[in-house]
C-alpha cells in the first residue's frame, strides 16, 4: 500500500513518513497540493491514503482535497487532514470538501494510528 504525505514542513513529512512506514505503507512525499497532484498524474497506481496539511504554498490542503474528489481516477483515495487548524468550522469544511478524517496537530503517533484504524487502514491493536 502507498501513502502520500503532503506537508510543506520537511520535519513533519519525516514524522508522518515514519508512522506510515511502520504500518507497511510505501511513503511518497509532496511539499504542497500542486506538487502532490502533479505526482498523482504521473503515478500508475493511486495511493490508498493521503495525509494532508492545510496551509501550504501553491495549493493548500483544502483545495487539494477538492481536486481529488473531483477526479474519478482518485476517488478511492482516503484523505486525512493533518493540520494545526482547529476551529470547528474548519473541520466541518474539510469533511464537507471530502476529507475522511481530521487530525489536529500536535498529535501522538498512537493517536494517528488510531485515526487510521478508524478508516480500516490499520489492523486493530497495531498501536498497542
Amino acid at each position, binding site marked *: 500500500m502507498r501513502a502520500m504525505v503532503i506537508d510543506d514542513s520537511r520535519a513533519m513529512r519525516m514524522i508522518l513518513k515514519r508512522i506510515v512506514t511502520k504500518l507497511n505503507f510505501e511513503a511518497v512525499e509532496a511539499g504542497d497540493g500542486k506538487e502532490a497532484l502533479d505526482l498523482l498524474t504521473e503515478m500508475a497506481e493511486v495511493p490508498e491514503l493521503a495525509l494532508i496539511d492545510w496551509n501550504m504554498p501553491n495549493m493548500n490542503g483544502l483545495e487539494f482535497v477538492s481536486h481529488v474528489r473531483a477526479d474519478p481516477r482518485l476517488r478511492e483515495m482516503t484523505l486525512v487532514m493533518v493540520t494545526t487548524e*482547529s*476551529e*470547528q468550522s474548519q*473541520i*466541518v469544511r*474539510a*469533511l464537507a470538501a471530502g*476529507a475522511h*478524517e*481530521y*487530525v*489536529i496537530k*500536535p*498529535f*501522538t503517533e*498512537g*493517536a*494517528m494510528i*488510531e*485515526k487510521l*484504524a*478508524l478508516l480500516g487502514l490499520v489492523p*486493530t491493536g497495531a498501536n498497542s
Partner: protein
Amino acid sequence: MSLTQAEFSFVSTLVRREASIVLAPGKEYLVEARLIPVARAVGAANVNEFLADLQRKPNPANQRKIIDALTTNETSWFRDREPFAALTDVVIPELVKSRSAARKVRIWSAASSSGQEAYSLAMTLQENLPPGWSYEIMGTDISTEMVKRAETAEYSQVEVNRGLPASQLVQYFERAGAHWRVTQALRRNVSFRLLNLTTPLPAMQPFDVIFLRNVLIYFDVATKRTVLQNAAKLLKPDGWLFLGAAETTIGIDDNYERVAAGRTSAYRVRNGVAAGAPRRG
C-alpha cells in the same frame, strides 16, 4: 532517588487495602513516575520525602492522592471499537425489541476514568436508538479526581485526537478555549459518581448493559469474583456485560456465560439467575 523496597511495600499495601489493586514487584518505576507530580503538588522535595512524611503521620487526603495517581489510566474514545460495534449491531437491536414498552436504556461504565467511555456510549446510543427513546449512562470511578474531570467533560486537543472520528467531534463537542467540551445535549444523559467496585455497592436501578473493561486485570481472583458478583446484582437478568479483551469470567464466576456479540464476546447471567446465587440444576 528511586523507591526503596520498604517504600514500595508501603504504597502497594495502601493501594491493596484501599482499592484492592495488586501492585506486583517490578512496578516500582511506574509507582514512582505516578507519584512524582503528587509529591511536587504537596510541596515535598521528592517521592521519598513524601512517603516518609506519610508513614510518620498518616494523612487521608494524601493517601487518597496516591490511590488516584495509581488508579487512573489514559483512555481513548471508542476504545477497542469492537464492543461499541457489538452494541450497535447486536445489543441495541435486541434492546429495542425487549424494551419497547419502557423505551429506555441504561448503561453503566464501571471504571469511567476521565469519561471517554461513558460519552462514547452516549454517542453510540444517540445515533442508534429509535426516535422517542431515552437513555442514561452512569460512569463510576474510584478516583475523585477522575469523577470531577469526567463531569467537566472537557478534553484537550491531544485527547480528542484519540480514536474520536472527526464527524463526531464536530457533532458532539464545542470549543471551550483551547479545549473541547461535550455538548449539553449529550451531557444531560450522562452522570458520574465515586464508587469502589470491590465494596458492597449502593442500591441503584439495574442496568441493561455494563461496560466493566480493563478493570479486572488489576485484581486478584477473589477480588475479581467480588466485583463480578457486585456487577451481576446491578445487571438486568437479560442484560449484557462487556469485559476487556484480556479479561474473562471463566474460572472466576461460573454464573456468567460467554456469548458471541458481533465480532467480540460479551457475558450474560446464566439462565437469567443473578451471579453469586446457587446455579440451577
